């Protein structure tokens, strides 16, 4: 063999694994990586909240009402981000707030994702009366502005964090049902589904083993984006005193408590909202990155 030819011959590279390919697309999006980093920090803070926060999130210090953050006149290192109206440490409350935001996101997505995907799968497999019925029902839910529907549901169920999560989850159902059904209908026309059917696979096996895994990409993207809107909507309910109740250090509830001090103590207003914005932004950034990496067809 001639030496020169050897250099031209391409070295047979191992085929790129799915994870590696995913990461190559995902990491090309700098915003997505930043979002992922922020989410990682949030998760870390949520897990270690009791260890890293300097004070208890609900203990109030009667000697330090509305103390400003450390860099302002009157601030001390004891309360780096200041205290709220009844002397609770803002930093500790913000750190504990990560738990509630992540919990809200997880539970809302789990509830509406599970039910929504199941309904969407069924509607895709049985497009007759059942499918039409499900889709009509979802259209009705969609007609209601989501926050209004959530408010009505909370009015029925009673205010509280759990009921707020259930209410928000119900308002997201249509999105999961629609995405799943549309993808299922697309996949059903493919040859591999016919092949599997010919091989004697039952309906349940076709649904869960054959078709569902191939529909996951848009569902995962939907789940990430729902995660961020769930945090926003639950915080909005908290702000209207319909979500988590005081003294829970949920960011929306903290904002509701702070409204009377808008003009006197900027930090009790600014910080919880900034925490919501940063977390929601991080999930939206990651959602965009996931969409690009998982489904180039959806890329706009």
């Amino acid at each position, binding site marked *: 063999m001639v030496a020169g030819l050897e250099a031209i011959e391409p070295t047979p590279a191992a085929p790129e694994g799915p994870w590696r390919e995913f990461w190559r697309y995902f990491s090309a999006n700098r915003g997505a990586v930043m979002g992922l980093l922020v989410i990682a920090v949030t998760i870390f803070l949520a897990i270690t909240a009791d260890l890293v926060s300097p004070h208890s999130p609900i203990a109030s210090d009667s000697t330090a009402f509305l103390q400003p953050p450390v860099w302002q006149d009157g601030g001390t290192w004891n309360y780096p981000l200041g205290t709220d109206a009844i002397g609770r440490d803002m930093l500790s409350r913000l750190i504990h707030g990560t738990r509630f935001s992540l919990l809200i996101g997880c539970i809302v997505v789990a509830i509406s994702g599970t039910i929504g995907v199941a309904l969407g799968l069924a509607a895709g497999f049985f497009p007759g009366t059942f499918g039409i019925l499900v889709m009509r029902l979802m259209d*009705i839910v969609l007609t209601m502005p989501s926050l209004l529907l959530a408010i009505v549901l909370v*009015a029925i169920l009673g205010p509280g964090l759990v009921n707020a999560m259930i209410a928000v989850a119900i308002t997201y159902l249509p999105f999961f049902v629609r995405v799943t059904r549309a993808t299922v209908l697309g996949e059903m026309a493919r040859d591999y589904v016919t092949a599997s059917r010919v091989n004697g696979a039952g309906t349940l096996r076709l649904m869960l083993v054959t078709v569902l895994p191939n529909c996951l990409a848009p569902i995962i993207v939907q789940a990430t984006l729902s995660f961020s809107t769930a945090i926003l909507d639950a915080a909005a309910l908290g702000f209207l005193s319909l979500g988590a109740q005081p003294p829970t250090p949920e960011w929306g509830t903290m904002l509701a408590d702070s409204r009377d001090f808008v003009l006197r103590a900027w930090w009790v*207003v600014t910080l919880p909202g900034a925490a919501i914005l940063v977390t929601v932004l991080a999930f939206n950034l990651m959602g965009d990155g996931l969409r690009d990496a998982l489904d180039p067809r959806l890329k706009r």
Partner: protein
Amino acid sequence: MLRFLLTRVSLVIPTFVGITLLAFILVHAVPGDPLQVMNGEYAITPERHAELMHEYGLDRPLPAQYLIYVGHVLRGDLGRSLITHAPVVEEFAALFPATIELSLSAMLFAVVLGLPAGILASVKRNTFLDHGVMGASLVGYSMPIFWWGLLLIILFSNTLGWTPVSGRIDVAYDIEPVTGFLLIDSLLSDDADAFRSALGHLVLPAIVLGTIPLAVIARMTRSAMLEVLGEDYIRTARAKGLIPLRVIGVHALRNALIPVVTVIGLQVGYLFAGAILTETIFSWPGVGKWLVDSINRRDYPVLQGGVLMIGTVVMIVNLAVDLLYGLINPRIRYRRA
């Protein structure tokens, strides 16, 4: 076309049934005696209670009660507020213009800024400008607007003293309600100061409510423009030697507008949801604040009626948007029919 029209219009009926069901269930699912829920809490004798139950039809089976309720709704009777004892329909009609004025201003703000921003981003694709617009719109899209409103109050009302904090107009002005829109009414009354006051009260709430639609419209315009700019007829237009402004403003924008118009129409539902938060922050006397107050006061007839009215309005607007869309874009009309 007729078939498309009929199919789309016939979908309204099950949706309306759904909305009435939701409003009906609302009052019956709230814990407590429905009579108390509907009429407030006061002590009455068991005999009087039974009598009232019969009078309101509350001793009938639920399906019958539902039909009675729908009968009332169709005749425009939504009950009376427990607090003010005024008919819910009248209260709604009195407050609705304030919400519409706010929503329209918010939409105007979103479209006037969002369209040019999206077009600019698409034309200057992958430049600093594009990234800036897209970054800003993602932040806007992630914004907790109830917090955004408080921030603007701190900055513009408190620190700079430019705008008032709450309400629709200064109490000093007594404007005769002609249209219900204070901007127009104050113009009609020839009082420039009143108009300035109304405008000053409107600016911040409109910005707050318009922020998320602005972000959505900018993103949508950009992606629709990018899709269109890659088409052959754009290349043809350029090859003919048309000036870029004409190619982008006429050839591209016209076609890109179709999805953008739909997105604008779909924001109507959001506007009502956002109005609930915005009106609460700025004490704007519209239906959003009215609904939140009704929950806090346990004024269930108001909540029930308000939900029904808003659901119906959104349903009708969605229908109008769909029909308009079918008119603008024949592809939709034929595919669906």
